[in-house]
């Protein structure tokens, strides 16, 4: 049963990733990305990562994908353009990518992995929370500061010029 679910999720993931790679419309690519993220979340569940699957749905599907869709809508002239997304140098890229896929899957299949004997499925949220607050506390704090800096930078960067000009006199008075 689990094997069947794995095969279905893999097909969903890979086919929608191919749509992202091959479709000529940015909107269709974004919708393909939605199904890829969902398939990857399902694969996380099959690899006993339930908390990560929920995070994937919240952050990727609820956050990053909405952001990408907004960028698509804001960065194309909806009225006159057809949201096209042309591709260049298709054949050489396809050759390189297929060769790389063959190489990587060959390496994955032929290597004898030292798989542990007791592969078990258990809830991971409690363990992850404990690790984040003890062993990985410093990376956790660093990444939270990085996220804050990136979000402030993004907000400042996407501000229109007029708003920046209106902001400046206030700042000078403040000094």
């Amino acid at each position, binding site marked *: 049963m*689990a094997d069947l679910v*794995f095969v279905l999720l*893999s097909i969903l993931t*890979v086919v929608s*990733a191919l749509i*992202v*790679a091959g479709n000529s419309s*940015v909107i269709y*690519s*974004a919708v393909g990305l939605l199904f*890829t993220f969902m398939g990857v979340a399902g*694969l*996380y569940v*099959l*690899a006993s*990562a339930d*908390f*990560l699957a929920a*995070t994937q749905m919240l*952050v*990727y599907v609820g*956050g*990053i994908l909405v*952001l*990408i869709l*907004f*960028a*698509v809508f804001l*960065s194309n002239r909806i009225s006159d353009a057809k949201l096209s*997304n042309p591709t*260049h*140098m*298709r054949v050489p*890229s396809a050759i*390189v*990518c297929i060769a*790389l*896929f063959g190489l*990587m*899957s060959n390496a*994955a299949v032929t290597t004898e*992995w030292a*798989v542990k004997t007791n*592969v078990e499925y258990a809830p*991971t949220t409690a*363990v*992850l929370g404990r*690790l*984040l607050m003890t062993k990985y506390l410093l*990376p956790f704090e660093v*990444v939270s500061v*990085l*996220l804050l800096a*990136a979000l402030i*930078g*993004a*907000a400042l*960067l*996407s501000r229109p*010029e007029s708003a920046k000009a209106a902001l400046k006199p206030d700042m000078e008075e403040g000094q």
Partner: protein
Amino acid sequence: MSLDKFLVVSAALFCCGLYTIMTRRNGVALLMGVELILNAANINFVAFSHYLGKVMGGQIFAVFVIVIAAAEAAVALSIFLRLFATAGSVEVDTADSLKN
């Protein structure tokens, strides 16, 4: 369902992302390719953590990768919006005013 099958799926996802990055000129589409590659890496982390790892290190690393991806997407998309306001397009090869 075994480790090598997870790795093959992740390799396919990685190659789709690489193909997207190699063929597209639209900045937003390039970002989608980057997200595909990050997801492929995350599948690898989680699968290795499940089949080989004794502690949860792989899953912790995947959490950090998701956070970095969110930060990267926010900054990159705001840069593309600014590029659209200045150059009138998000095609990355139109952003060559430093060269000319």
